[in-house]
């Protein structure tokens, strides 16, 4: 353990203990432990191939670690499917935008609500009574997200035609639609220009402070990480090399070596 995080009386939302994930002989993650506290913005950083995305995939149940335990809300989690993770309150966005390109912004975000829809397909198709009420309530929620992310002008546009920065925003919207307790963002600002990055940072901060959503994000832009994150965990070659506040992490020699390389 490098740094003991300042727990601040916040409840632990998710904790990983001694997690190891390997693909055949390749160890993607070896013996990593860290936790995510309720209401914080947690960054996972590290050089290419450090195992960051694998980490997210473990958290949302897409990969199953060979060793170690994952505890969600104080309960030890068993082997699970991603949709169960989703149902339990974990949502994510992807490094490469993964939207339904032919569908509109509105429909994409509505799709994110499907877990919250109680009525079955039959009732939804009939579009009467409770199914109708449910759709109206869900639509309202989606409109609030559209308002929050300032994407009203592209509400009815197919997302495939939108510029990349906006697609990223729509994807965040879809993840928000689930009202997740934990939101995993895989490089939310990759490929954005400065202004788009500033907008996205603002959305992430507001999302965290307004809705109290806990956020775990992978990001390469150190400036962004330092501004956004409450705590940072640094991975390198599948190992955890630092864990702490942005300032602590930034001054760690190991982190500097990992990013800048060491003379051999």
């Amino acid at each position: 353990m490098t740094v003991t995080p300042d727990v601040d009386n916040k409840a632990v939302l998710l904790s990983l203990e001694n997690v190891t994930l390997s693909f055949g002989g390749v160890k993607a993650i070896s013996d990593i432990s860290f936790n995510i506290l309720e209401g914080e913005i947690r960054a996972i950083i590290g050089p290419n191939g450090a195992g960051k995305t694998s980490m997210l995939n473990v958290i949302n149940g897409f990969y199953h670690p060979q060793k170690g335990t994952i505890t969600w809300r104080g309960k030890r989690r068993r082997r699970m499917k991603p949709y169960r993770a989703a149902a339990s309150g974990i949502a994510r966005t992807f490094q490469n935008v993964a939207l339904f390109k032919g569908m509109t912004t509105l429909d994409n975000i509505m799709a994110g609500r499907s877990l919250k829809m109680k009525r079955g397909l039959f009732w939804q198709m009939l579009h009467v009574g409770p199914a109708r009420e449910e759709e109206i309530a869900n639509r309202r929620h989606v409109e609030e997200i559209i308002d929050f992310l300032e994407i009203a002008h592209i509400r009815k546009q197919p997302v495939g035609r939108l510029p990349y920065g906006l697609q990223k925003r729509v994807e965040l919207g879809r993840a928000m639609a689930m009202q997740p307790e934990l939101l995993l963002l895989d490089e939310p600002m990759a490929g954005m220009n400065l202004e788009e990055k500033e907008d996205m940072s603002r959305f992430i901060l507001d999302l965290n402070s307004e809705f109290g959503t806990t956020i775990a994000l992978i990001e390469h832009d150190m400036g962004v990480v330092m501004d956004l994150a409450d705590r940072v965990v640094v991975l390198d070659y599948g190992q955890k090399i630092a864990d702490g506040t942005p300032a602590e992490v930034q001054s760690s020699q190991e982190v500097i070596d990992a990013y800048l390389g060491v003379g051999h």
Partner: protein
Amino acid sequence: MTESLGSLPAYLLRNSHEFADRVAMRHKDLGIWREWNWSEVADEVRRFSIGFAALGLKRGDKVAIVGSNRPKLYWAFPAIQSCEAIPVPVYADSVAEEMQFVLEHAGARFAVCQDQEQVDKLLSIQDRLPDLEAIVYDEPRGMREYDPEKVVAITRVQELGDEIIQRDKDVVQRWSDAVGELKIDDMCVILYTSGTTGRPKGVMLSSRNLIQTSINANAFDNLDHTEETIAYLPLAWVGDHVFSYTQSLVAGYSVCCPESLDTVTVNRREIAPTYFFAPPRVFEGLLTSIMVNMEDAGRVKRWMFHHFIKVANKSGERILNKESVNPFSRLHYKLGDWFVYGPLKNRLGMSKVRVAYTAGEAIGPDIFRFYRSLGINLKQLYGQTEASVYITAQPDGQIDADTVGTPSPEVELRIEDNGEVMYRSPGVFMGYYKNDLATADTKTPDGWVHTGDAGFVDDAGHLRIIDRAKDVGKLNDGGMFPPKYIENKLKFFPNIKEVVAFGDGRDYVSVFINIDLTAVANWAERNNIVYASYQELAGHPEVYQQMEEHVRHVNKDLASEARVASAQIKRFLVLHKELDADDGELTRTLKVRRKFVNERYAELIEALYSDKTEQFVSTEVVFEDGKTGRIDATVKLATVELEPVREELKQAS
């Protein structure tokens, strides 16, 4: 003439009786148009006003209003005015320093803001604003952690009003009485002019200025309580203030607030306003997007579009002006209306427009005619903040693209010996706030106002504006150099967004061109032209080639007109960055600040008057959050061959 009431809040109360159930305001929120009728609006305003008074607002206080077109911000005006305090709308996209100037100069005690962005801006400069006591805001998002003593929600202010009304039954009557006692000659708003030169000046307008002007304007175009309009222009601009606030109150018509600035076009289509007001830039932008979309359309559609636009060009305006047109052309036009103009107008949200105005700047004649030929009753008006907008306007059917119409009702007009246009009207402002010197410079003791524009009245009694009096210059060979005239000709091309012309005291005319990113990016995409940035696109050889063709085209036009034949464009460059109000290059109403551009790009201008083919330039830019950075670029300079001028034209000039 109708007897006027004594104040704008008094009109609100009248409307709440006379048009109680009619829609006064709409706002699209969460994807749904919400409506308030006049009696609901009066109620909202009353609670707001009584609550505001409880916060300490009193007679003579100045209240800044910062934000875009939201119902609650529009309600802030009468709420403040009924406390005998004075609203001071501020351009919402101003950077903090600009805002500081206005708030400090006005001595604002309170500010009404739309959202966190504006509140943050004000909080960042609050040390320099000792008069500012509290900020009231509309949208609660992100506002949880602010000091509730200094930063209060409008809904909270209204609750406060409610509590007082609950406790004290008489307060409502007292409030209505106070509104009835407001004096018509008292100042009721300060509008800061964006100022193409120097610091903004605070134009003080009285209730009488605004009410009388609104009564006249409504009568001129037969506007009544059945009109629908959409409010999307800056609150601080006199055009929006008169059009969306005072004229609406006086006539009782409804005002619709779009969802956001990005959705105006879609929202306008949903509302289909009957009365519409926009600066030329909006019409230019719409035309560009039409042209771009048509390029993308299928062959048949494209052919139909171009065919029927030609038809419209030929007979559209004459039909609109109710002139005699032969039956065949009429039929052909009707067909065009069916296939092209109707759907197009619907797309633009202009299918129900009875009267549309363009003002603020000269509009390119070709752009103007384009809209008219579609059957949209677009007219020009000439106005100023100092006149409560209206100086001249074109009466229906008497439209000429080159004039700005006849004097508006009760406006007297005269032309000085040096060509400057002067006017006197009931709308003439009280003076500049805390600036008697400037007032004395602009307004004569007997109420005439200098416009600063050069113009003349033609034989039909219509005013023609040549240019800003001080902008018209002379070339070294003695030829006239009217910058605006040249710029407008170039701006008609959809891929050109802005132009700045130089030539005063020079041997020839040269121009800076700003490409229109929407149009050029679309063209690049269709032609597989790869670019990484605005800068790279602007400097692309093919873009230069297109611009050169445009310049040649304009030169041909200029060569055929005696007065301006020597003002042909010899050299040009495509700027590496967009001219931007944040950098001070444009005013907040998006007019070019010539003097500033001259100084900032002096190197580039000098290079245009040398043999150089490129010039390095390093420019400081301001980002949206107020941070600064630099853009470095090597800008290419191009030379164009001039068109020959016919001998008889030379003689004539």
